[in-house]
């Protein structure tokens, strides 16, 4: 193995310094602050407070993010599967030109769109009423946890699909053809032949989506009311209303733990594969 050259180290120094100053230092600072009591001694007081005030919100956040990730996975598999295996050219063409659009829309704009789209007398319900599919009295507002999930899934599906469709396109077509020739349905080919070959990519996409959704502030703030709400909103509230960085940091640490758990599952899976290989 070659020794690291001084020149190489110099080249990456600016990037390392950036990570150190802009990420590692604040991370360490917020970790320390979360575990420090008001008197400066180490304490779990902030976590007690976070639990006392926000235990419902922690569960709510987990629920939203897990459900959104699962739905994102399902839709992505469906779309990528159709793009790869479908024998209806027009469907593939339409889907291919449509599915990427939400990628280019920022979360905050998506949230604002959903606010007018999903409201009780919003665009969606009004359309259903105008089409005669629904009576005005049956209209309900989706601007609560359902609205958050719809927005998240709508935003993240194209991202995962993009990765997944790419992976599916690059697998060996012969396996698919063989399956079809032996009489397997397209659904069976998708689930039993294609998916196992792209599972790794799917997992990466879903882990990244999970972490992204965990950290979005604008969507829960704009789409749904504040009870219960996601941890990002609580953190913002803690800082804005009380200047209470300790509890906000404790909530941040809880988010790290949630994101870390997912990353750990992913890493473990990876290691297992490498050991097998």
């Amino acid at each position, binding site marked *: 193995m070659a020794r690291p050259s001084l020149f190489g180290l110099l080249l990456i120094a600016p990037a390392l310094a950036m990570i150190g100053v802009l990420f590692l230092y604040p991370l360490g600072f917020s970790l320390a602050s979360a575990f420090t009591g008001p008197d400066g001694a180490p304490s779990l007081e902030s976590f007690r407070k976070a639990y006392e*005030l926000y235990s419902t919100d922690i569960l709510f956040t987990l629920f939203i993010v897990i459900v959104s990730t699962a739905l994102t996975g399902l839709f992505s598999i469906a779309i990528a599967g159709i793009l790869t295996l479908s024998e209806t050219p027009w469907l593939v063409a339409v889907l291919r030109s449509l599915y990427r659009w939400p990628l280019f829309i920022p979360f905050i704009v998506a949230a604002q769109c959903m606010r007018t789209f999903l409201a009780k007398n919003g665009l969606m319900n009004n359309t259903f009423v105008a089409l005669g599919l629904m009576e005005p009295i049956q209209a309900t507002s989706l601007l609560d946890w359902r609205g958050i999930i719809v927005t998240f899934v709508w935003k993240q599906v194209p991202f995962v699909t993009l990765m997944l469709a790419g992976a599916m396109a690059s697998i060996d077509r012969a396996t698919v053809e063989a399956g079809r020739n032996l009489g397997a349905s397209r659904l069976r080919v998708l689930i039993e032949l294609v998916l196992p070959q792209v599972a790794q990519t799917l997992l990466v996409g879903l882990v990244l989506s999970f972490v992204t959704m965990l950290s979005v502030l604008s969507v829960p703030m704009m*789409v749904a009311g*504040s009870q219960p709400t996601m941890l990002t909103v609580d953190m913002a509230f803690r800082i804005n209303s009380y200047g209470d960085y300790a509890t906000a940091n404790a909530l941040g640490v809880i988010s790290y733990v949630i994101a870390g758990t997912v990353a750990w599952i992913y890493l473990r899976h990876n290691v297992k594969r490498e050991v097998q290989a």
Partner: protein
Amino acid sequence: MRRALYAAGFAALLMTGAASAQTLNVATAGDQNMVDYIKDYLGPLFEKQHPGVKVVAVGTGPGDGGSQKIFEKLEAQSKAGAPADFDVVVIHQKAAGTMVQSNLLKKYRDDLPTGKLVTRDTATNSLGTDVSGYVMPMFHSQTAIAYNPDLIKDPPNSYAELREWVKKNPKQFGYNGIKGGMSGVAFVTGWVAAFGGDAAKLEKGPYDAAQKATWEKALADLKEFNRNVVITPGNAGTLDMLNRGEIAMGPVWVDMFYTWKAEGKLPPNMRLKLVSPGMPGQPMYYAIPAKTAHEKLAAEFVALATSPDVQAEGIVKRFNWYPGIDAKNLEGKLDQAVWNQLFADIPPDALSANGKPFPISPYFNDILEAYEKKVAN
């Protein structure tokens, strides 16, 4: 050759910048409308009176969070021994108390020509902290219940009647909780004042931590009440839902309500009601940081901003806010129609009877936290 020209031009630009160095930095907490007010109206007016001076407005965001940012910056600069970046700040009540206690503000009101025009006690007392001399109210804002008279012929007169009404009309009342803006916070503190025992003590103190225990019942009732209401996303969210007919009633800021109505974002028939025993309102303050470099200019700026003419034209006419100085100084400056509109649904006697201040800071924080613990969690 061309590069030399550019360089010369750039140098000239720098020098003109240095020659007219009189820049007055005004930092405002609050929504974008506050920044626009300084940028489009007050700034140009002041620049006309003081040739060579440039007014720069910076917004730090809505709600107490905006004021918190100003506080953090001033505190950091004060600790570093550096002069303050801001010459005039526009802040909320909670931060004003903290800033006075941390010696970050100048005591300037007594020398201000308009200082004597203020009569409301918010000019001396900010959520329980004595701020006399340090702040000058810019305007007063009030919360009230907005309702749709097409759906409600006979709006409730008190919190108790409202509670009964909500029981009979589930999901017709909406408010934004406490994380989505101050109108929801106002509604909740009003609720605790109405059902939680000693309202006068909440506003005047002295602080007694044991008081919290008397709110138990009120907050349990509020949790029950919340089952039949809609939690809206924010101050604007409540107005949005009123506009779309999704709720029939909800607490709003009076100024925002009239502004939306004037812009056609609310049906013209919508009305307001200030229920008893009262809902809170709050001023925003002009204050001058202790370490500003432009002390005299800053004081002149605040004097202009709180002069009767500007209060009439800028505050009442443009924003439907109640003036920061005593309203009797505005007589003759406004036509009767504008004045009447502001008091159409909430007559002056109702405002003085039911327009309350927010509770003193420690109670205020306790109420918010008790709400998070008992109602939201």
